[in-house]
């Protein structure tokens, strides 16, 4: 019995000290539809696009945002670096937007290739993929601090 209690306590302590972000974040690059005229944006501007706080490009055309799945290490890196929040906090943000009837979360594609295909085919689309992913048919956006 004492042994079981020790194991239980150890498990609880391990859970308590586990880091918030268990996933290892990966580097990313932001890709946009090739017809998009913008070549460079700041992190804050990109964050506003991905949180749908800005829904138009500077030329007035609508933005179509695409995400990777919540479990993706690339999404984890993008979320912390650009949005300034972990994926859980971003999910909570979208729950608030959905249930208050204010906005719906971005389309989710399962892989880098799916994101690139969506961005290439959708006018005004913007997404992110791993830094070493093939990105033919789309433009890579320079993201400044």
């Amino acid at each position, binding site marked *: 019995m004492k042994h079981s209690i020790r194991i239980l306590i150890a498990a609880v302590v391990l*859970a308590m000290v586990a880091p918030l*972000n268990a996933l290892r974040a990966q580097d990313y690059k932001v890709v946009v539809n090739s017809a998009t005229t913008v070549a460079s944006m700041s992190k804050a501007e990109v964050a506003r696009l991905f949180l749908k706080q800005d829904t138009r490009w500077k030329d007035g055309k609508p933005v179509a945002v695409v995400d990777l799945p919540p479990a993706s290490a690339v999404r984890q890196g993008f979320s912390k670096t650009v949005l300034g929040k972990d994926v859980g906090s971003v999910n909570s943000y979208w729950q608030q937007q*959905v*249930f208050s*009837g204010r906005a719906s979360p971005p389309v989710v594609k399962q892989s880098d290739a799916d994101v690139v295909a969506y961005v290439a085919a959708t006018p005004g689309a913007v997404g992110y993929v791993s830094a070493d992913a093939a990105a033919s048919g789309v433009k890579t956006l320079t993201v400044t601090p």
Partner: protein
Amino acid sequence: MQNRTWALALALAAAVPLHAQDGIDHVDIHGFGGWSYGRTSATNVYLGGLPEGDNRLSQFALNLGASSGESFRVNAQTEMNEDDDGTHVALDYAFAEFKLSDHVKFRVGQVKQPFGIYTELFNVGTVRPFFSLPQGVYGPVGFAGQSYKGVGVTGSERLGKWSADYDVYGGGNDLMKQHVVEAYYHHEDLNDVANEIETQSTRNVVGTRLVLRTPIEGLSFGGSAYTGILNEEAANRRTVAAGQAEFVNDRWSVRSEVAREHQVQDEDALGYYAEAAYRLTAKWQAGVQFDHLHNTFDGVDASSAPSLQDHKEGVVGLNYWFTPALVLKADVHHVVGNRFALPHPELLNDIIAQGALSKSTTLVRLGGQFSF
């Protein structure tokens, strides 16, 4: 009738993806729900918890959004709750929105009332650290309705490194009010108080909310206010104002609100709360909350049971988040005062006459909440 309404909503939800109308290019289906067990001390009932314990507290809501192009969107949400009184079905909101720009969006229909931090998210358990909202501001004293029926304008504006979200609206709203205390003070037959929570309707409502988001990520301040005329014979004016402060990041969520209500020749209320929650790990979260409400009624002698005017509460909670969409919660509440924590209405007169009204109540609540 309620069951038919719910069945219709489910049938529509099931049919929408298969038979989306021409012009509707995107349909979202979301929902939330939960279940909890609640047990109170003494003879008092609070937040659905009963002295003998109650495991009948369950809830499910279905949320639909349909977009046509970039500018037009329809949103609707219906909700079903079960408790010891039976099953209750309600339309939370159903409205259309036309976006002129990110700065100006026009809304018409039954719209979630923009008031304070939580009114638009009233029963969504996965966006807050505790099972229930802090009763000092969100309890059934009627600071705000869950929705307004009418027209509104909403939008956001960047102000350098700051930004502002605003809402302006007009129409009518329905408030949920716990009627037992007022009925007791007015010597009404408490056996006739069929529903402990009654709906109070207000017309000619005009209201606004302004939230300022600071350059410090997650820190915001805001204020809300509205006024209207009660849909009652006396047609008294009702005015409510509130202030809010919030700081949220990956580990911390800290919130506080204060609300003041004045109903001419009827009642006054002042409530406030503060809550803080901390993520110990990605899965575990602990939280504390304190809230207070003082509610007075004009023309009554409250001396026989003054504690019915007050609510003071402390809560501690521990949550385990499987994912951001599923959480198990355990809360312990200690309440002093009987504005919300009190015996069944039919027993209230006898218990007060015997001097047996317990002014303090402890509630233990366990369960889970989810969303998708």
